[in-house]
């Protein structure tokens, strides 16, 4: 009788050549785990090259998945299980597998040539160098080819199903449901019955292999995580962002116009929105980044909701047009799915180093609201919030996501879209002033006294013809003006309009459990964007040691919540972890004169929660003294 061990969490990393289908394998395991009821968090990691040289370290593609019976925050720092499909995948990932970890390797690719390619003198599966791990060297490819031979595929085609064999084996090992993957394969390869049958057979054979072989003495179960009642799905950040844009535009009763140019890691939002034209979505693949945002701004001028999605290099190109949107005071949503920079940087790796670019990267005084999604599912809510602010205040709004949030996935309680609050576009329909002769006129820059927003009058509205543009506007009339006093007033007014949005956003909430009893933490860790997961996990770990620590997270970066200064001053030390060299820390120090400490990691990867937890503990101890 085989033993079944119950675990609360497991981290699996699938690694192989970029053509081995590791992303698909990971996606399927994630979907089956989510359906099973586990909490999940994922980290895809792949080369920018579509097909990097086969069998080399740069060509390794991996997918890490964390699933648990509780609410987890990150895809995990280090895997418990590594599946390595070739020597390069082993070499690139073995250092992350803790001693004693489970290692499953496909022996088929461990040929002399492939070993030499990545610098192995001897076969590590045979020379005892992996003795510290629970090594299972299996001929996954050979078994796959054998299993699917009835379908008459070439050996090459047959061996391509090896990822499904591996998935089947892992599904058995961790008691995952199999119906989802079978259904998925049936529909994905509906038009290629041979391939479909080979993949399904490989998957089932892998599962059966686990069941019948004596290789694995133990199987594992990870029970479902307790979650609030409701209907859930798995969602990635880019998908949630696309759905949020559709839903937000719908809530504002505006057709959505997306102008975009393909760029990693933002293109999936363009792809997704292009599939949903039925909801009044127009997608325009422009000739360049500038035309993408230009057409979006034109659409906004014409009364649609203009939006664009890009990454850091694209924001740089769009800067002048975004300045025009600031000047013309039209709604526009600019989504920056950040990646490692500068310049081309590392397109498939994550980073948070565009904050200062979106804040300040335009000529002149050109303020714009900036929001940041803290998790994949949060992209949905952030997109709607961005649309609300853009429409209400007639302004371009930045949405910051990053490669980690964009490609990562988590369970998401499906919202009731009918219950989401609607957004009033408030189009101008009639004149808003009278001239000296008592004639009714339209002043395109006459502002709402509360929001300071100007009227949005769209073509086709009789009597409201007006001209806007990049030249400084005279107050109220919007006519060209070079008057010094007027310029000073307009610069300050545009800033005041954006600053005033602080009245319209929630206060930052601090999680400081013992503060109510007067024994609050002395250290506050403050984050923004995708560091939410690692920070929250690290904070939990710190608290488990008995230390006190406060946590807060910003979703609104410009303007910042009205109570932020007071929160920052309440703590002896404020630590700001960021995947950059301290950009939010710089902003906070400048604005609030608080000596915040930057915790900076720019490795193209999410911040390590164990490293962060240890560093936070040291900070706390340096202030409060080491716990007895």
């Amino acid at each position, binding site marked *: 009788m085989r033993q079944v061990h119950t675990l609360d969490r497991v981290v699996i990393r699938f690694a192989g050549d970029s053509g081995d289908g590791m992303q698909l394998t990971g996606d399927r395991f994630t979907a089956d785990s989510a359906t099973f009821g586990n909490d999940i968090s994922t980290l895809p990691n792949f080369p920018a090259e579509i097909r990097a040289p086969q069998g080399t370290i740069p060509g390794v593609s991996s997918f890490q998945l964390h699933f648990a019976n509780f609410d987890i925050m990150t895809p995990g720092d280090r895997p418990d299980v590594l599946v390595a499909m070739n020597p390069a995948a082993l070499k690139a990932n073995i250092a992350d597998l803790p001693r004693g970890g489970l290692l499953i390797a496909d022996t088929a690719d461990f040929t002399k040539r492939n070993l030499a390619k990545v610098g192995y003198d001897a076969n590590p599966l045979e020379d005892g160098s992996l003795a510290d791990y629970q090594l299972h060297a299996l001929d996954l490819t050979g078994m796959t080819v054998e299993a699917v031979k009835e379908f008459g595929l070439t050996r090459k085609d047959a061996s391509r199903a090896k990822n499904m064999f591996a998935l089947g084996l892992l599904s058995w090992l961790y008691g995952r449901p199999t119906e989802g993957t079978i259904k998925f394969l049936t529909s994905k390869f509906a038009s290629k019955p041979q391939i479909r049958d080979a993949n399904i057979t490989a998957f089932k054979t892998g599962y059966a292999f686990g069941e019948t072989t004596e290789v694995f003495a133990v199987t594992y179960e990870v029970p479902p995580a307790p979650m609030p009642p409701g209907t859930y799905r798995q969602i990635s950040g880019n998908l949630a962002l696309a759905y949020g844009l559709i839903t937000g535009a719908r809530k504002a009763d505006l057709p959505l116009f997306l102008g975009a140019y393909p760029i990693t890691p933002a293109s999936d939002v363009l792809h997704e929105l292009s599939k949903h034209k039925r909801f009044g979505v127009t997608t325009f693949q422009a000739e360049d980044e500038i035309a993408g945002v*230009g057409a979006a701004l034109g659409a906004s001028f014409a009364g649609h909701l203009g939006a664009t999605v890009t990454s850091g290099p694209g924001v740089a190109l769009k800067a002048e047009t975004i300045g025009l949107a600031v000047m013309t005071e039209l709604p526009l949503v600019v989504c920056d799915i950040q990646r490692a920079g500068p310049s081309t940087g590392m397109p498939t790796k994550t980073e948070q180093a565009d904050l200062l670019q979106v804040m300040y990267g335009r000529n002149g005084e050109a303020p714009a609201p900036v929001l940041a999604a803290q998790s994949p599912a949060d992209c949905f809510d952030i997109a709607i919030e961005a649309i609300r602010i853009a429409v209400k205040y007639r302004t371009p709004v930045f949405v910051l996501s990053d490669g980690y949030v964009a490609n990562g996935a988590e369970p998401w309680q499906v919202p009731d879209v009918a219950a989401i609050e609607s957004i009033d576009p408030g189009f101008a329909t009639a004149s808003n002033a009278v001239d000296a002769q008592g004639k009714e006129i339209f002043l395109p820059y006459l502002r709402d006294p509360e929001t300071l927003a100007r009227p949005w009058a769209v073509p086709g509205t009789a009597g409201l013809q007006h001209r806007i543009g990049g030249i400084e506007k005279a107050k109220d009339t919007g006519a060209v003006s070079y008057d010094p006093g007027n310029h000073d007033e307009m610069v300050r007014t545009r800033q005041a309009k954006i600053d005033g949005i602080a009245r319209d956003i929630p206060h930052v909430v601090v999680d400081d459990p013992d503060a109510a009893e007067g024994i609050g933490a002395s250290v506050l860790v403050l984050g923004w964007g995708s560091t939410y997961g690692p920070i929250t996990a690290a904070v939990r770990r710190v608290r488990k040691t008995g230390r006190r620590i406060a946590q807060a997270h910003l979703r609104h970066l410009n303007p910042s919540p009205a109570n932020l200064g007071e929160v920052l001053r309440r703590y002896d030390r404020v630590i700001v972890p960021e995947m950059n060299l301290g950009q939010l820390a710089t902003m906070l120090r400048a604005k609030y004169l608080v000596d915040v400490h930057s915790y900076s990691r720019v490795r193209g990867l999410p911040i390590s929660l164990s490293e962060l937890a240890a560093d936070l503990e040291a900070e706390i101890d340096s202030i409060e003294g080491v716990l007895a």
Partner: protein
Amino acid sequence: MTAVSGHDIANGQESLAAVSQPTRPVRAERPDRPERPARPAGRTAGGPAGRRAPAAAPTAPIGPGLAGVPLALEPLNRKDFTSDQEVRWCPGCGDYAVLAAFQGFMPELGIRKENTVIISGIGCSSRFPYYVDSFGMHSIHGRAPAIATGVATAREDAAVFVITGDGDALSIGGNHLIHVLRRNVNLTILLFNNRIYGLTKGQYSPTSEIGKVTKSTPMGSLDNPFNPVSLALGAEATFVARTIDSDRKHLTEVLKAAAAHRGTSFVEIYQNCPIFNDDAFASVKEAETKAEAIIPLQHGEPIRFGVDGAKGVVRNPVSGAFEIVDVDAVGADQLVVHDAHAADPSFAFGLSRLTDSGVLHRAPIGIFRDVEAPAYDDLAREQVKLASAQGSDDDALQALVAGRDTWTVVG
């Protein structure tokens, strides 16, 4: 300061032969055209003498280019298209003449002014939208075609015009120009070509002749200029024309034909900059030289010019290129007959090569090409419409957001 009005400049100059008005099928009027009240009686145009508003309110768009744009409820005149802004170009600038012609012909299109959208870039001519009482945006350098693409795609009911110059359209905005042309977005581009940078005070432009001595090229410019018409035809633009600022009649007729065309209409306007490049187009304007300088293009007519029509255009049987010959030497029946509707842009491109690239002594003027092709914005709207037929209510949105793989957690 006394500004010379464009009308004065345009006055007293003999027009080119009438622009050929291509006869192309006009799209059926849209059934959702709004009802129009009876025209108020006795209304006359307030424009210059000799120009009057249409006698009656328009009943149909002048061409497929304006299909979908609501018609004016009552006849408009040039004053209706004049904004309250003081026009601020240099005295004698050719831009005045184009503005005057534009304000003069807009009422004849019969559309509502609030459905007219003018997008410009940066440069002297790009101030244009401020002076027309329509919706307008004076945008940023080179980007007007991109912004206008957004407007045109978003709004079927808008008549969209792009105002640009040689630097704006061909240097900083060259990429947007070729792409709007290849997409064939339904809008009309007026390219004011003065072969110089005016607003930045006199640097050479991408249409300046080689050897141009300017502030930035004291030893003469080195780079070969663009021929804007050739460029547009290379991008397979569906309507390409060239006209001259000072020939009000020709300018008006070309612009009307451009507005009537569905898809991107590209009109190069030879425009004089009296400050930095005066008389760049003197050869096609001066009474004593114009007959020899202008090669008039009229659809269906042999291409013939010069004093007494002594010169003409033939095709070289070996190279296939167009050449200028003495008509007497070859016989009139050998002359090329202009075909603006030729499907292949090579014909029009060949004609465009008869333009001098150096100092201008000779250029074909008129409509080079006018062919029918699907417009990007029409197709884009069609896709949205088609997709919407699958249902787009809240239930459909809810189903989209929920996706296909959900699981339920019971409380």
